[in-house]
């Protein structure tokens, strides 16, 4: 039994006019403990919605989420989300944002222990000296470092990353991805990440789930990425398998883009044969 099981989950939204829109259907994804799984797909394939369902912030229309043997349908401290728009509380300082999470997760700790723990994470993400700044005074990269620290401090069973670096400039993104890899290596968290960034997905993940385009998007295939860890960006990028996986995913996304399928000269969504590309390093 896998640690996190997404079992035949579908999501249908009721539209204002009374009609309904099926965003994705029958998604089945099993994630083992300590595994880093990314989901890649076009906008509108519902990958963020699926992440919210795993987080308990939204309900599936059909199917179930099973974490560590138990079905879950509400949010909990065993799952923390790092949001694309950071979602820090703007009236609180960096320290207060993280402190709120730590206090919620470890209510039994005494004041000093909580303080030391918060400070340790602030140092870990390189925010020492900025702990008393409000998020508005920070760059996007620094804000997301707070977001990462907030999520990691809680020590969740599953970390959910919702396009975490999409709003961060390219140079900062590289650094913060490396930091995320570092933190993940140290904690061995189970991670589910949603992203548009193919290179990011390959660099960070053990497996990459590819979604066809919405509406009625489906999980088409899962790509295994078997590069050894810890990974070093420059080395990974030089591997021939890296180029092959990247080409495969980009090809997949291109074949599945809405413009092409609307033209009718490409295979329709979901018709692609599910085939795993296995990269042996």
């Amino acid at each position: 039994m896998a640690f996190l099981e997404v079992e035949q989950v579908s999501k249908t939204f009721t539209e204002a006019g009374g009609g309904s829109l099926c965003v994705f259907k029958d998604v089945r994804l099993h994630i083992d403990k300590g595994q880093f799984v990314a989901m890649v797909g076009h906008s509108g394939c519902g990958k963020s919605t699926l992440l919210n369902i795993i987080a308990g912030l939204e309900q599936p229309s059909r199917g179930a989420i099973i974490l560590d043997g138990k079905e879950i349908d509400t949010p909990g401290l065993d799952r923390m989300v790092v949001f694309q728009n950071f979602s820090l509380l703007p009236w609180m300082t960096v320290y207060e944002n993280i402190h709120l999470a730590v206090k919620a997760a470890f209510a039994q700790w005494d004041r000093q222990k909580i303080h030391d723990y918060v400070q340790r994470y602030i140092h870990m993400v390189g925010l020492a000296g900025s702990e008393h700044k409000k998020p508005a005074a920070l760059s996007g990269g620094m804000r997301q470092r707070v977001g990462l620290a907030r999520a990691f401090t809680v020590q969740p069973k599953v970390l959910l990353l919702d396009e975490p670096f999409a709003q961060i400039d390219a140079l900062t993104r590289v650094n913060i991805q490396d930091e995320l890899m570092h933190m993940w290596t140290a904690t061995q968290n189970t991670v589910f990440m949603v992203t548009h960034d193919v290179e990011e997905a390959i660099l960070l993940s053990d497996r990459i789930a590819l979604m066809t385009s919405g509406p009625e998007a489906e999980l088409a295939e899962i790509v295994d990425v078997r590069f050894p860890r810890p990974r070093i960006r420059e080395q990974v990028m030089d591997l021939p398998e890296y180029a092959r996986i990247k080409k495969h995913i980009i090809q997949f996304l291109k074949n599945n883009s809405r413009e092409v399928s609307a033209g009718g000269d490409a295979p329709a969504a979901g018709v692609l044969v599910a085939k795993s590309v296995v990269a042996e390093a």
Partner: protein
Amino acid sequence: MKQLSVTVQRRRTQVISLALLALFLSVWQLSTKAATTGPSKGLPSPTAVGARAWEMISDPFYDRGPNDKGIGVQLAYSLGRLAVGYSAAAVVAISLGVLLGLSPSLYGALNPYIQVLKPISPLAWMPLFLYTIKDSGMSAIMVIFMSSLWPILANTAFGVAGIKRDYLNVSALLQLSWFKRLFAVVLPAAAPAIVAGLRISIGSAWVAIIAAEMLIGGTGIGYFVWNEWNNLQLSSVIFAILMTGFVGVLLDLGFGSLAKTLSYKE
């Protein structure tokens, strides 16, 4: 148009402002010059008002019986009523507003009534209060209460209902208790809207207290204005009117700085 530096522009504004004041005072002085022989003949001149103002400001806290109290004493009575009625309204309106803001169905159900009650002049309630409470002082406080209630309630409910989904998601993920959620997320997130309501209503409450005190009599700046009118002491009336304006500005400045401290940038 030529670009002006900020300081030059500010100085220009100040000069225009003072020039207009000087113009107004001299027109007033000239038009009232002929009529300074008796208290009943025409409006008092600015110099007469100034003299009266000086007299009252130099001894603001004397108390020589029910119809002869210093301006400071009268203002203190009014501000005391304001504080009681306004604080009560703030507590009731913010609590109720949070409940309405968090429950869309309750909000929808009560909103039509709030919309009907909101435009009613707070003074219109006076007869009902006098009849039910049978105490003029308490009735005046209730008028303040009614004048402040609706703007605070409407703004709080609006602010809480409009809290960004993201902030509530964070509080859900962290499994914050109801109490913690209220004080760490809901109230700070809605604070700018709530303070905007507080600021609007402190103004309308201060306007209402003058009128209420004219009706109930006894004490307060409103009663003072009415009493001096009965004595045909128009320079006192004018001075008192200006004082209410100054107090109103001070109250507004206070809430302005509160708004500044509680606002946040996303």
